């Protein structure tokens, strides 16, 4: 069996480092090359995995690739997907799918027209504590589900993440899509209505973009809930943030803290105490699933439409905040 050949398109999003790490540990996978518009960054990672560096996307797409992984700035997902579609069998695109619904739709359409499989990177579906929750829900242990309280807190990521042109939005866009994707997946449902309080520069004066988001939503299956997307973890905090889900039903409560499997490490060098995660990374399952999709020539387990629905909710949250009232989703 020949190797699955993967091209990495951009390391602007730090998740690329983790994806590369897990890909390079997998049997039968070859990193065919790395493209990055940042020469230093691209060259560094190319040297690290002993793969060629390409200054132009086109040059890398010529390398007889099976798939590409796109971890560019959010706004550049669309041009990179449009360029790759038809030249590879499958694309793994970092979340959010795009910064606008128009871009997202164009990506989905082009991939369909060219028979290219488009998968959105939602690694939380592959995190074992989340999978355990999904199994419990599928077994129906909670009985009727009432409510779900969730958080996806983070530290303020800086760099292009706070540049509206490249990121498309701040904390709300960055951290709405993961949890919303999980809820859609848990119950095969859609968000029906969202209300949001969005805060600009509340925690980071002068940031120039939203850094606080509280979403209150109702799902089509009748479950209501909230999601806190705020970049409210300071530099001095022991970890980057969290994904927490409290699902309440008639028989009780299931609480998941997806990143709670930690060592507590106190370091004089760091000048602080940190939580070092030893849990199984969802990124590992995500890239394995992507490679399996390429190998088996099957449909992606997380589709472009899934990415588009999650983006819709994030954009509706901004809309709600501007209008001061709940917003109904179109579906």
């Amino acid at each position, binding site marked *: 069996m020949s190797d699955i050949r993967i091209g990495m398109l951009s390391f602007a999003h730090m998740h690329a480092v983790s994806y590369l790490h897990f890909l390079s540990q997998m049997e039968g996978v070859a990193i065919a090359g790395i493209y990055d518009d940042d020469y230093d960054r691209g060259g560094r990672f190319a040297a690290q995995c002993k793969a060629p560096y390409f200054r132009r996307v086109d040059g890398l797409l010529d390398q007889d690739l099976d798939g590409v992984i796109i971890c560019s700035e959010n706004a550049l997902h669309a041009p990179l997907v449009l360029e790759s579609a038809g030249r590879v069998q499958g694309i793994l695109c970092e979340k959010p799918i795009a910064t606008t619904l128009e871009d997202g739709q164009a990506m989905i359409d082009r991939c369909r027209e060219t028979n290219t499989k488009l998968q959105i990177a939602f690694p939380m579906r592959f995190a074992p504590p989340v999978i355990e929750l999904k199994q419990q829900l599928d077994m129906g242990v909670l009985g009727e589900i009432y409510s779900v309280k969730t958080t996806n807190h983070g530290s303020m990521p800086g760099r292009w993440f706070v540049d509206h042109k490249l990121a498309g939005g701040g904390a709300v866009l960055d951290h709405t899509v993961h949890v919303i994707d999980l809820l859609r997946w848990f119950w095969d449902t859609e968000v029906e209505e969202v209300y949001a309080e969005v*805060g600009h520069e*509340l925690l980071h004066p002068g940031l120039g973009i939203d850094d606080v988001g509280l979403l209150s939503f109702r799902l089509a299956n009748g479950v209501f*809930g909230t999601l806190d997307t705020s970049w409210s973890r300071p530099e001095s905090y022991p970890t980057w943030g969290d994904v927490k889900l409290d699902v309440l039903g008639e028989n009780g409560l299931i609480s998941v803290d997806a990143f709670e499997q930690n060592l507590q490490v106190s370091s004089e060098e760091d000048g602080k105490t940190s939580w070092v995660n030893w849990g199984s990374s969802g990124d590992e399952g995500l890239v394995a699933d992507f490679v399996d999709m390429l190998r088996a020539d099957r449909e992606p387990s997380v589709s472009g439409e899934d990415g588009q629905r999650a983006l819709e909710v994030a954009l509706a949250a901004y809309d709600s905040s501007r209008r001061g009232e709940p917003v109904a989703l179109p579906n």
Partner: protein
Amino acid sequence: MRRVGIVGAGGISRTHADRWNQMPGVELAGFYDIIEDAAQRAVQRSGGKAFSSMDELFDAVDYVDVCTPGTAHIGPVVAALEAGLPTVCEKPLANSVADCERIVEVAERTGTPLFVAMVVRFFPQFAKAKEVLDSGAIGAPGVIRTVRSGSFPDSGAGWRKGLAITSYYADFAQSGGVLLDLCIHDIDYQRWCFGEIERVFARGMMFAGKEPKDHALLTVRFANGAVGHIEGSWSYPRGRFATRIEIAGSGGLIEWDSRTRPPVEVALEQEDGSLASSGSSPTAPQHDPYYAELAHFVRCVEANEPFLVSPYDGLMAVKISRAAIESLEKGKAVTIR
């Protein structure tokens, strides 16, 4: 020696009576309840005498402690204030905004001290979090999240079973469900920490027809632009009560969770080989929040100083709780006027 009389011999009166009985310089004169039996039972467990009328009680005391259900606060509170007796009123100040406004008006006109027992401000961890926030250690207010979630309050303890208050809680039209009974604590605490609340948006089960279960998730916007989130529940499984504080500022974060490991854990192997474990987080008696709030009341009255919680604070907490209920009914955000 100051004498205190309790009006309303239901659930919370026992908690208060225990504290009054511990307090130096204060004597529990007794109870008045419209149900004579209830007053008699309270006397048997807590001491003092059962008064046959509110006036008889007023004549015998220096302070009045009103522990009736929220719907029945206005009568005894107004009467006590008119009689010039410094008064403790259990939360909520009243169940309707109109009753609260009337009470505040009487308190202002008579100048009689009225303390609204918003006990959460006296919980040491909540008080300390506010102190750290005020110290500037975490910068300017950003996001405040609090949780107050447990099971429906019907059988936490045997003595509580069958009390009239249980059916009162389950009748949301009376009690206001978790939004008025439980979330009011968090509304008051968050308002104390971050200032005036501008609008609220609520989702919850109050009108879902699942009484006595209730559950609510609230988002609030403060006048200074900061935001808040409140979870209140009577739907958690029994024994899983939880409270939480999380305050994020421009320069840091404060967190506390009642479910983190307690300072005292007892693990005992049973004869059948199973494990019996329990945990506790003891504090000095004077830092018990119910003792602290009542001692604060006495101290302020004696020193003629303002209370930590004003009648206006009590009114605003009810106003915001009511706005949250309105938000739930209308499916819209409600601006606080």
